[in-house]
């Protein structure tokens, strides 16, 4: 009986705090079972920089700057299934709390009027730094997203149920106790 | 006469009756220019309603404004037919001449320019409302003249009368528009028809008698299917095309 090939999974954190990735690792020893079924492609866990063709792409964090857009689009192009994991990816989360403010007011407030900065400090403009977008967007506003896993972070059990459903080809169903928005 | 006298004058004209709040707000605004927080408080006290309820009503209607909108409030009718006649270009020209953006009041508080929903002048557009009086057939020349009149603070009553003329444009009349009934004919016919013996006395007296057994009308009589023919149910606002 030929064992099914391992699914290739890629993960990344855009404008996220890596809390979701921590929660993914909270599945503890179950990660051994997981590794029977999947292999990690580009991911903070493997430190591979660019993702190749994958089956599942898991995105933590919303789209806050230009770099996030590039990474997100690369994931969309390479992954058959794209999953938004965590409140930031699903609805913008904490970073999006700046959205009703004007970006130029924020930058001026932080770098020009804020006390305690060395004199003559300018708004950072090193070409290496990605520029922030006027607003932070949940990822479904930038690319087509297939599945969503809300929570801040989603619990390890919720991630486990979600992944095992997905890998087994079932539509992920969390149910009461596992589905949380906070 | 300071503001509160003017407001109380309107209130007394309407018997301090909250049901007439729409007319009270309109007449007050026509007198004072806008509905300030103090104005709303005086009106609320006058009709004995909670102030929040009065502010709620004032905040619902686009022609009531709880912020100053200028001595002249110019509203450009923005139905698609006005767009097809170039209302946006004319409005932008007016805004540029008055140095303001649509929706914003000018620095000196003199004038504000904005769009509004269809004003019912589609056959003689583009149309505007200036302090809620209709002016039709706007052109670039008339925009320029209007800007000068506003700049020179000329009262509306001294604006060219022909601007305010609204055409009927009746192109094809039939029974409703051509029949010349002298006033009262329909009533006399109804009363005559109504005089047959089996029709009871004038409906006013009858309605009182009928009301007796119904008790206080405050209790909403539950609408049983039988009391109102099925068509009433059809009046549930299904889309006109259902």
């Amino acid at each position, binding site marked *: 009986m030929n064992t099914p090939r391992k699914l290739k999974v890629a993960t990344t954190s855009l404008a996220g705090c890596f809390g979701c990735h921590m929660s993914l690792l909270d599945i503890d020893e179950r990660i051994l079972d997981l590794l029977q079924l999947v292999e990690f492609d580009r991911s903070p866990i493997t430190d591979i920089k660019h993702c190749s063709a994958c089956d599942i792409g898991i995105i933590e964090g919303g789209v806050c700057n230009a770099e996030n857009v590039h990474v997100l689009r690369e994931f969309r192009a390479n992954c058959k299934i794209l999953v938004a994991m965590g409140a930031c990816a699903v609805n913008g989360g904490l970073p999006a709390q700046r*959205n009703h403010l004007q970006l130029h007011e924020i930058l001026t407030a932080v770098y020009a009027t804020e006390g305690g900065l060395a004199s003559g400090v300018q708004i950072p403009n090193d070409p290496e730094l990605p520029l922030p977008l006027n607003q932070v967007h949940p990822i479904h506003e930038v690319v087509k997203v297939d599945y969503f896993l809300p929570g801040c972070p989603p619990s390890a059990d919720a991630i486990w149920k979600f992944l095992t459903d997905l890998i087994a080809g079932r539509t992920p169903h969390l149910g*009461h106790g596992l*589905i949380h928005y906070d | 006469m300071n503001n509160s006298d003017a407001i109380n004058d309107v209130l007394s004209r309407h018997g301090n009756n909250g049901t007439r709040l729409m007319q009270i707000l309109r007449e007050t605004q026509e007198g004072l220019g806008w509905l300030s927080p103090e104005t709303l408080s005086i009106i609320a006290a006058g009709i004995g309603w909670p*102030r929040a*309820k009065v502010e709620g009503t004032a905040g619902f209607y686009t022609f009531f404004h709880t912020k100053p909108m200028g001595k002249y409030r110019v509203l450009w009718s923005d139905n698609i037919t006005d767009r097809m006649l170039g209302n946006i270009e004319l409005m932008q020209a007016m805004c540029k001449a008055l140095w303001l953006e649509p929706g914003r009041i000018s620095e000196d508080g003199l004038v504000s320019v904005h769009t509004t929903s269809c004003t019912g002048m589609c056959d003689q557009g583009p149309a505007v409302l200036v302090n809620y009086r209709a002016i039709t057939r706007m052109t670039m020349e008339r925009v320029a003249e209007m800007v000068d009149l506003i700049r020179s603070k000329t009262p509306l009553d001294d604006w060219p009368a022909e601007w305010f003329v609204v055409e009927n444009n009746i192109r094809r009349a039939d029974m409703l528009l051509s029949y010349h009934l002298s006033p009262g004919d329909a009533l006399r016919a109804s009363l005559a028809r109504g005089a047959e013996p089996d029709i009871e006395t004038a409906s006013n007296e009858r309605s009182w008698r009928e009301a007796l057994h119904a008790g206080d009308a405050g209790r909403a009589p539950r609408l049983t299917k039988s009391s109102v023919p099925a068509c009433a149910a059809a009046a549930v606002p299904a889309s006109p095309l259902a």
Partner: protein
Amino acid sequence: MSDQTFTLDDQEIPFAPGQSVMQAALDAGVFVPHLCYHPEFRPHGSCKLCTVKINGRPATSCTTPAAAGLNVESNTPEILDKRRTLLQMLLVEGNHFCPSCEKSGHCKLQALGYELGVMTPHFNLIYPDRPVDASHPDVLLDFNRCILCELCIRASAEVDKKNVFSLSGRGITKHLIVNAESGRLADTDFALTDKAAQVCPVGVILPKKQGFSIPIGRRRYDAASMSAHVDEFKPTAKVQEERP
């Protein structure tokens, strides 16, 4: 309870005269999603979450009088999908950031999202700019979470007789206002003991100095879903406070 009944998803539901379809269903222990309904107030009919099909026509079950022989469909895939869309509309209209909200775990909007399995706001979020009124010594008003259900308006008018709240504006700009020229809650006669302070289904009207007092796991909807709380929504139920 009269012997007259109507069918709700193939279950016979008895009803008393004057009851709405929803009240009869709740009385019979059948949960119907709702947000602007509250057992102690007249039906309002604005949130539309309780929309069902009655004899094939959509209708709000909270405002439709129960009648013998009605065929009511509630938990069909089509209606559940429409309820999910309505909930998503509410989620994108305001700023609902649950992780930092004191009402999380007690919030009906959130609990209904769990109940219906809403995993994403789906539409593009509007991110409105809404104020917070912290002027009152005991109560905070955070309008970011207001879903315009008017429960506080009805409670303040009918029970407290203070008319502290009202609505102003129209359409998407409709918003709650308070009964004071200054627009500040502190300048009204509002008190924490008012009924209006206990009926907000979301996190707008919050008692100060009590945030997050109940730990995660022991909050109202942690242990049991909203539908399991159906007894609380019965027309005769005395609802305990919404105190988070």
